[in-house]
Structure formats: structure tokens, C-alpha cells
């Protein structure tokens, strides 16, 4: 694809009371510039992923604001909104801009500042990712949509709450190894099963948290990438697909068709099979979402994702490392930042710089970023 990652940066995720989105964004960009040994003047264009600063901070017109505070005033700057897949949408458009031949070096960032609002208002804000006329109107919530997917998956394949819980336990363990993660404590299956219900059958520990955070990537055309780094991470596939925003109009309630289409396209583009992927950062906004992701991406057969998680096949040292960062579940889910943060983690892993959570010998990594309950799916594949 002739595009490489040459710099990465990510802030601490969590409830960061004293930081606004512009400060978080500037911090992530600063890390990425230092990582690439670049100055702001080297950047030619800016792509910002953000879901809804409009509702979280009453702030629109986000891209120039972010660019300005990050020392990139004057550059073309555009914000991308695709619900929880906003970050990967920004990344994809940064890649497309380089492939167009217009730019050699661009900055992709993602940011969300969620914790200024009380939980009920965050729930309301997130629900705009669903179909307002036919889903939100009857009282559905975002956890509710995934709960209905979980119930359908349980009825169809016999997936259990214990299997869902094993995803949360694994991701908390990985988050425990990641100093930037929102949660850095281990939990056990009992704790997940005994937590208060959010949307039956999903409880509190089946859900990703409400987090603040930002991440940034510097992309360069391959032929200039080596000027800035000895370890460029090559982007070998970028794919995207869509489906109905409303869950009830989908062909399947147990898999995400858009993710399956995007995966097929991505594997073809990269010339690799699912078996060759060493690690994947997947969109585990809820525990069931990770199980379905591992099936949609072809790592396991439909219905085998639950048992695979329970048997430890998705641990850092398992057959396929899923969410070594801790995932959305434990690393945190600042919505519009997530897709960019996933790419940061895969880049760090492929460089071999992930410390205690390093997937040994990682050569090929994948990111899977989903918007809403599956209406947007964006997949990227990276090689060292």
C-alpha cells in the first residue's frame, strides 16, 4: 500500500478530570512527533477521529481546534465521525490522502473527552449511534443492542456467561500489564458474574468503561519513511464496509456482516490469511463483541469464539493474541480515539516495544474498529 507508520503516541486513558480534549490531543501528538523525531512543520495534513465532542463538551468544529493546540495551526484539518469507528475512519482517510499522491506525511489523531458528563447523559449521548426513530425511541441503549446480540449468540451456539466473563478477565489481565490502560487491576470470573446488570445478560464488567484519552499516528509514504525511522510499520490493508444502523434489519443477529465483508477485503488486499495474523486489537466494547469479532475475522468458526476465549486461546501467549493492550474493556474506550489507539498498540507490538505485554515474534497485526452495533466496520492490517 506504500504507506507506513513512522510515529505513535497515546495518552493515559481514564477519568482525567483536569484535561480537555484539546489538551489530550496535543499531548498525544507531542508523543508521536517525538517518537518520529519530527517537528510540526514536517506534517502536511491532519485527520481527527471524534464521535461527539458536540454532546460531551458542547464543542463542534473540532479538527482545526485540535490542530491549533497541537502546534499544527494552518494545516488542512478535518474531523471524521463514524460513531465508535471514528478513529479508524480518520486513519483510513489519512492513508487515502497519501495514496492520492497529494501528501508525503500526515497526522492522524483520535480523541474523546467523556467523563465531564454524568453516566446517564453519557448513555444518552452514546445512543445517538443507534437508529433514533426505531431503536432509541423504544428505550434501547447501546449495551442493550449488544445484549440482544449476546442473547441470540447464546441461543444459537450455547455461548455462556462464563465464556463472556473470560474475555473480561483476560483483558483486565492485559490492561494490568499496560501502564496507559484505564484499569490496571486483575479481576476473576466470579466478580464479572456477580456485578450489577446493565442490560441483561450483560453486567457491569461485560461493558467497556467511560474513558478520556487521545492517540496519534504519523503516517509517511514508504519511500520517505526510512528517513525518520529504522522500524517503519507497513500498512498492508485498509478496508471498510457498512450495514443497517438498526440491529433489527440485519440478516444475522450473531455476527456482523460488515465486519465479515471488511475482513475478506482486507485479507485479499494484504495477501494474507487469518491464520497468519499474530495479534489483533479488536472492538470489544462489550465482552460478546470480542467473541463475535474473533469469529467474523476467521480466527475461530462461528460459535467457537466463546469456548476459545474460555480455553485461553486468545491470551497474549495463546494461538492468536487478542487485545494485548487490554482492549476497550480494560485499556478504556474514549470512543473516537479507539481506532487510532488500536493502530498505536499494533505498531508498538510489531516494533517489539510492548514490554510486559509483548506478543513474541509478532510480524503481522490487525485492527478491527466497529461503529454502533455494527453499521460501520473498518479493518487495517500492519506488517513489520
Amino acid at each position, binding site marked *: 500500500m506504500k504507506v507506513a507508520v513512522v510515529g505513535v503516541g497515546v495518552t493515559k486513558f481514564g477519568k482525567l478530570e483536569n484535561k480537555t480534549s484539546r489538551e489530550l490531543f496535543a499531548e498525544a501528538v507531542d508523543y508521536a512527533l517525538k517518537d518520529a523525531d519530527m517537528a510540526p512543520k514536517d506534517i502536511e495534513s491532519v485527520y481527527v477521529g471524534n464521535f461527539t465532542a458536540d454532546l460531551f463538551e458542547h464543542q463542534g468544529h473540532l479538527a482545526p481546534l485540535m490542530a491549533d493546540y497541537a502546534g499544527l495551526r494552518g494545516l488542512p484539518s478535518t474531523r471524521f465521525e463514524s460513531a465508535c469507528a471514528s478513529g479508524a475512519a480518520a486513519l483510513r482517510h489519512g492513508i487515502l490522502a497519501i495514496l492520492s499522491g497529494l501528501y508525503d506525511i500526515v497526522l492522524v489523531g483520535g480523541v474523546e473527552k467523556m467523563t465531564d458528563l454524568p453516566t446517564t447523559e453519557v448513555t444518552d449521548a452514546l445512543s445517538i449511534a443507534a437508529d433514533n426513530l426505531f431503536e432509541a425511541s*423504544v428505550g434501547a441503549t447501546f449495551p442493550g443492542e449488544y445484549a440482544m446480540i449476546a442473547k441470540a449468540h447464546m441461543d444459537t451456539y450455547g455461548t455462556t456467561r462464563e465464556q463472556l466473563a473470560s474475555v473480561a478477565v483476560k483483558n483486565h489481565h492485559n490492561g494490568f500489564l499496560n501502564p496507559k490502560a484505564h484499569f490496571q487491576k486483575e479481576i476473576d470470573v466470579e466478580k464479572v458474574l456477580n456485578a450489577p446488570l446493565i*442490560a441483561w445478560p450483560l453486567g457491569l464488567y461485560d461493558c467497556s468503561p467511560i474513558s478520556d484519552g487521545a492517540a496519534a499516528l504519523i503516517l509517511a509514504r514508504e519511500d520517505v519513511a526510512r528517513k525518520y525511522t529504522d522500524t517503519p510499520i507497513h500498512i498492508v490493508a485498509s478496508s471498510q464496509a457498512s450495514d443497517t444502523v438498526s440491529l433489527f434489519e440485519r440478516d444475522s443477529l450473531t455476527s456482523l456482516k460488515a465486519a465479515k465483508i471488511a475482513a475478506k477485503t482486507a485479507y485479499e488486499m494484504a495477501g494474507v490469511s487469518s491464520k497468519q495474523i499474530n495479534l489483533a486489537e479488536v472492538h470489544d466494547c462489550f465482552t460478546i463483541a470480542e467473541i463475535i469479532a474473533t469469529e467474523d475475522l476467521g480466527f475461530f468458526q462461528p460459535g467457537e469464539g466463546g469456548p476459545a476465549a474460555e480455553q485461553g486461546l486468545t491470551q497474549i501467549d495463546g494461538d492468536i493474541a487478542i487485545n494485548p493492550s487490554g482492549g476497550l474493556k480494560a485499556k478504556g474506550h474514549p470512543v473516537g480515539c479507539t481506532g487510532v489507539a488500536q493502530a498505536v498498540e499494533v505498531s508498538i507490538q510489531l516494533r517489539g516495544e510492548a514490554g510486559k505485554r509483548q506478543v513474541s515474534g509478532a510480524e503481522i497485526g490487525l485492527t478491527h474498529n466497529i461503529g454502533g452495533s455494527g453499521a460501520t466496520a473498518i479493518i487495517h492490517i500492519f506488517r513489520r
Partner: protein
Amino acid sequence: METDDFSIKRFLKYISEGELKGLKCNKCSNIIAPPRLKCNICGSSEFKWVDLSGKSRLLTYTIIHVPPKKFASESPYAIGIVQLDEGPRLEARITGFDINKHAQILKNGVELVFEPIPSGILSFKPLI
């Protein structure tokens, strides 16, 4: 309202008035709900409103314990995806049963009927 108003707003107004109606395609007899500009089978835009039986089957459901602000006083409540006998699927409240016994009552594929509720929200109840 005019008889040729095949809009989403008309569809929702029927529901709030306690009626469940769908569009019937004049060309291929396909039933469409919620309304779309064109028939998803044949592409025609010639429709008439028809009464739907309200008979349906439950495909999946959840119990909402942390509701949106607007429905805060109503939780816990059930939301489900139903498949109407006429074909279309809808997302709706599931009411008219003891929510504490939801796992026994809302078995996979249980039969439901359209049940207008005072709030005007689309609702179905189990046939028990």
C-alpha cells in the same frame, strides 16, 4: 392525512394511535415496515397501507437496567426484536408479563402480539 402519505412519520403516528400498519407493494405484494422509498424486493414505489396482524415471534431480547434519562422511571424493562408473521422485523418494548420471570416466559421464538400501551411506544406482549 392523505392516503398517499407513505412516510415514516405516518407509520409512527399509526403506532402512537394504537394501530400497526405496513406498506403493501402494489407490484409484488411485499410487506414493508418501517417504510422505505422503494420496495426492497422489486423497487416499486406504489404502495397501499395495510393492517398488520401484530402476530409475531421473539428473536432476541434484553432487560434494560440502566436506561436512557427519558425512560429512567420505567426500568427495568424489556426490549426485543420481533419478526412479524407478514415478514418485517421491528424493535419494540415487550410488556404484559412478569419481568422477574423473563427467562421462563420469553423463551426463544415465543409468540407475541402487538399491544398498544399508553405512552404510544411500539409494544408487543407474549401470548401466555
